Structures are given as C-alpha cells and as structure tokens.
C-alpha cells in the first residue's frame, strides 16, 4: 500500500493506517527531536506531540509537499516552541563569548576537539543550531531544511555559513588541526 493510500485511510480514521504512517516516519522524527532536545524525555514529548497534531490535522495536508516534509515541519515547530517554552535550552545556550573564553588556555585540560565541537554546537543560538543539526548531523539538504522551516534555501545556506563561522571562531585554538 503506498503512502497516498495510507493517508486516505488514516483520514478516514483507519487506526492501522495511522500506525503504518507512524512506523514509517517515527524514527526520523524522533532522531531529529532528540538531536535538538538532547534528552530522551523531551524528545519523546516532541515526537508524540508531532504525531498527535499530524493525525489531528491530516485533513489539511494537501500533498503539495512530501508527507515527511510536512511532518518534519510540525516536528521542528513543536520542538523549537517546546525548547523555548521550557527554557531548558537556555542552560545549554551559554553565550558564545563564554565558550570562546573557555577555549583559551584550556587545551591541555580539554584536548578532545570533538567534545569541544559538540559544546560549541550546543552554545549556538537555536536557529543556527537547528540548521547545523539538520544539515551537518542529520544530513538534510538545504531544500529540505527550507521546506521544513518555511524559509528560503538561501536563508538556510546563510544560517549554516554563519553557524560554521561561529564554530570556527569558538574553536580557533584548534585551527592547526584542520589547517594542515
């Protein structure tokens, strides 16, 4: 059974079709939610809310985009609003300047470039972090990101470029590692 048929059946209230759609998409939605939230409890909340809203509003899905794009748009909206609401992201969103300060003179104490890079991604402003996670971590194309976040492709590219510039800045003392 193809996805269009599943959608039609789910709209008609067929629980098996709803479950099939859930099974087809839940992994990628949960992965994205987890990458953004950084913790299982929030990722579950965001994933569950995404599918609850999706099933509730399936009638409004007009098939102009792929169902996965539509679902991921809901997922990112739920996750970003959730992160803002709970303000939990603020604990991770330490000022980038602070991250820069940590980089200076602590190389011997914290030599792991990968963990430093992860911390620097955490410290990015939410909109930049979202694009970095989607593009560099989860492998979305700029076209997919643009459709999901309802922005222009150029905006997605520009945000990724700015995010990477901030990351390079934050990891300036490791420059030799990738200059060579």
């Amino acid at each position, binding site marked *: 059974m193809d996805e269009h048929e599943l959608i039609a059946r789910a709209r008609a209230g067929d629980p098996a079709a709803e*479950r099939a759609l*859930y*099974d087809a998409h*839940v*992994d990628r939605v*949960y*992965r994205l939610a*987890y*990458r*953004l*939230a*950084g913790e*299982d409890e929030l*990722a*579950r909340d965001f*994933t*569950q809310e995404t*599918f*609850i*809203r999706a*099933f*509730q*509003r399936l009638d*409004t899905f007009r098939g102009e985009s792929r169902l996965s794009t539509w679902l991921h*748009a*809901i997922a*990112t*909206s739920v996750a970003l*609003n959730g992160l803002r609401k709970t303000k939990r992201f603020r604990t991770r969103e330490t000022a980038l300047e602070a991250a820069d300060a940590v980089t200076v003179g602590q190389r011997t104490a914290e030599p792991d*470039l*990968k963990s430093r*890079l*992860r911390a620097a*991604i955490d410290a990015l402003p939410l909109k930049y972090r979202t694009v*970095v*996670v989607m593009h*560099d*971590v989860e492998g979305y194309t700029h076209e997919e990101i643009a459709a999901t*976040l*309802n922005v222009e492709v150029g905006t997605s590219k520009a945000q990724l470029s700015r995010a*990477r510039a901030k*990351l*390079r800045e934050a990891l300036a003392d490791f*420059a030799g*590692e*990738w*200059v*060579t």
Partner: protein
Amino acid sequence: MNDDRFDEMMREAGREYHRPPETPREEMWAAIETERRRRRTTPRVIVMRPAWRWGIGMAAVLLIGIAIGRVLGPRAPAPPVDSVVAQTSDGVAYRLAAAQYLGRTEALLAGFRSDARTGVLDPQFVAQARDLLSSTRLLLDSPAGNDPQLKPLLEDLELVLAQIALLPAGRDKRDVELIIQGIDQKSVLSRLRTAIPAGPAALPRAQGAI
C-alpha cells in the same frame, strides 16, 4: 582554515552529537493513543491563573457595561481628556480592560505569526480572533477610542483580527502571508508590546494552551 577539513570534522563530530538511543516506538505509540483519547473526551480549555480569570471577568463585565451604556445612556459630549486612562476610577477600569485586551491580542498574534511559519494553523486562532474583534470594536466605541495613541493601534488591530477571523477553512498560504505582511509592515506587534503597561499587576497577560 581549511573548509574541507572543517566539514569533515563537523561530520565526524556530528555522528556523536546528541546521539539518539533506539526509538522507543511502542512506548511512544501507547502514549500517543492515550493522549488522543484524552483530548477527544476532554474539551480544550484555556488554562489561566486564578488572578487572571478575575481580571478577564472584570474586563468582560466592563466591556458589556460600556456596550450597554452606549446603547442606553445619554449622549453627553466626551470630556476633554488627554488619555483614556484619566485619573479616575473609570480610568483605572479602562486601563484594566485595555491591558487585558492588548495582552490577549498580543498572545494571539504572536502565536499566529509563529504557527504561520510552519504552515499549520490552529483553527482556534480564528475563533479567538472573532472574540477579540468584538472587544476591539467595543473599545473603539469606548473612551479608549479617543486616546490619540491607542486609537490608531486599535484600528490596525481591528483590520488584522478581521482578516484572521475571516480566514476560510481551506485557508490559502498566500492569505496567511498577507496577514503576516500586514502585521510586520505596520509594526503591529511591537506597537502592541509598547502599548502594554509594564508589570504583572498592570497587565495580567493571557497564558494558555491553545
């Protein structure tokens, strides 16, 4: 810095960044089913703090009073006042009513603008816009409508709320974009926020789960 090397580092680190565990699909599905059943049987309500309920109740009574007064009361010329919120008990009442209204409208427009980006609009926005549109017209007919600062804002809000209230069920993305453009071009949200009095006592802002 070498971009290729940096990109490679990003990909390597990315694999470890908040690495998700195995998807708990059965647990989440069970939670989804439970929550959907609960939402089907429980009507959606706006959750507000008790103090806000009182405030909104008072504002509603005040607006009804204004409406009745305008219909039944004598048409005396309006006294020359610099502001709606004159130093009278009526002024305090208008201030409260206006603050309540502005706070609810700001919450609605901010939520509408935010959801519009995703292309998934909650139908409740339309119902709330209709409700607030009535309040806007009552406020425009009240002494608040004489306030030189508040009046243009109320008129712009009336237009925006009317546009939202009239959104068709099968709304077109273009319709929503035009509304958002109108909000942005007239700086409606920033003017709203400027007009809202500071402080929790002055403005019990609406908070709720839409």
